[in-house]
């Protein structure tokens, strides 16, 4: 557990160093909406980091993505969440800039992503508003598409909103002129990865890591929801948190009903009515 905390604290620090460099370019990225091929990490879970839209040059966006991907992926020994048998890799998707409203993600595309074990696709838009006599004020809308949830929704299964949107800075927060403070939120990425990974592992019937990730998502989403978020974002986030909790309960029920689940499995110690008791 100490090791986990150390990894996350270290990641936060490294992101704080990385993001200012990257966001200088990100805020000036050119508008190139479109889906291009992005190869998923073979045999592993992937998170796609797509180019943000805005205005500016492609080279800056490319540099940003490279550094972000390197930071998230390489500098953490290939591990995002300290769960056994789960290896999540971050993939920088150059020239891939989905439409802000997510309309590019048709069922065929989502099915392909799900089959390639892509958990999350992150993209968004960064705006720079000029302020007289001061540095421009930055704002961003970041989109997080939880691929396994979207795939399930396409199969007409009941799920929470698979496309989560967060605006930075949050309502009521002081104007932000420093890009680092704007979107350096590894907690947000961590929460969505945990939710998507937990749900995907549940579908793959890897019950123990599924349960661990779903309960972890519940606590991280709760922490995000305590921030002053705008109306629909908050409602969607709370619905996702409830869905993660329900899925954790479903994981316990399915594990206990599965004859191949170990007789000494740890999930047998949990109460399905309070699936994340002690972990929230």
């Amino acid at each position, binding site marked *: 557990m100490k090791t986990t905390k150390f990894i996350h604290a270290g990641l936060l620090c490294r992101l704080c160093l990385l993001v200012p460099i990257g966001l200088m370019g990100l805020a000036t990225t050119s508008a190139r909406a*479109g*889906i*291009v*091929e992005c*190869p998923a990490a073979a*045999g592993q879970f992937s998170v796609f980091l797509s180019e943000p839209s805005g205005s500016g040059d492609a080279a800056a966006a490319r540099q940003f993505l490279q550094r972000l991907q390197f930071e998230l992926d390489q500098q953490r020994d290939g591990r995002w969440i300290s769960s056994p048998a789960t290896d999540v890799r971050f993939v920088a998707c150059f*020239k891939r800039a989905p439409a802000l409203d997510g309309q*590019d993600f048709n069922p*065929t*595309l989502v099915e*392909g992503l799900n*089959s*390639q*074990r892509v958990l999350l696709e992150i993209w968004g838009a960064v705006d720079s508003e000029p302020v007289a006599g001061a540095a421009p004020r930055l704002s961003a809308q970041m989109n997080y598409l939880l691929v396994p949830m979207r795939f399930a929704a396409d199969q007409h299964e009941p799920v929470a909103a698979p496309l989560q949107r967060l605006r930075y800075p949050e309502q009521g927060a002081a104007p932000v002129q420093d890009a680092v403070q704007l979107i350096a939120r590894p907690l947000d990425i961590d929460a969505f990865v945990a939710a998507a990974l937990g749900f*995907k592992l549940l*579908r*793959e*019937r*890897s019950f123990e890591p599924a349960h661990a990730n779903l309960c972890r998502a519940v606590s991280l989403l709760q922490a995000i929801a305590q921030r002053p978020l705008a109306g629909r974002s908050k409602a969607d986030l709370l619905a996702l948190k409830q869905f993660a909790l329900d899925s954790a309960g479903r994981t316990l029920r399915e594990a206990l009903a599965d004859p191949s689940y170990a007789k000494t499995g740890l999930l047998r110690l949990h109460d399905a009515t309070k699936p994340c008791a002690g972990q929230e």
Partner: protein
Amino acid sequence: MGTGPAGGGSVEERLARLEGLLAARPAQGWLARFAGWMGAELPKLLAAVVVLGLGWAIKDSVDLAIKQRQLDLSYSKEMQGLLQKLAEPAEMAQLQSTAVVLAAYGEAALPALLSELRFTGLRADAAEQGLAVLALRDPQPLCAALPRILSLRSRQFDWQVHLKVVRMLGEQDCVKAAAALRRYRELVQAAQAGRPERFEALVRQAPLAPAEEYPRLLKAVDRALQELAS
């Protein structure tokens, strides 16, 4: 002595009667006269006429086949540019429109589009759309080609391609593929039951999440079989 037409009388009388009889016989047809005139050369002439007739009859179809081959060759050269376009990194919409244009070449584009299925991701999705467009004109060539992918041992295709193939067979109403689908179902069912060797011998890479993917494949096969039965 004979009592026939030549019987009785002097030799002159008898000859006159015979000549009279000959003159009274109906005249021979031109064919008989021609055959009589050709004599032993007739069979050779008949053989020559038969060869000429056959040659005339098949000339058009041979010409047509040669022209078809020439057209296919010229299509191949034209399609090469489109295939290179599909291989380049491009937006999803552009790949799809390229595949649809490729499909406009008809049956000649079938091998190229099937080959594109090997590339998982946007290229395979575009190829699937191209094949669907191709089947709008005539689904038969597609229906004949697709079942083979489900039993190829060359391991060129992923299980995701199998999923696409199964769906296409159902959607295109490829009734003759029902037996191949049933055989494929047995393989997947065995794999799901923990005997994946025969299934894995067909795919480039085994499913990473068998507990999720095998039921998906089975569901798709069952749906396709239902579509074919209805």
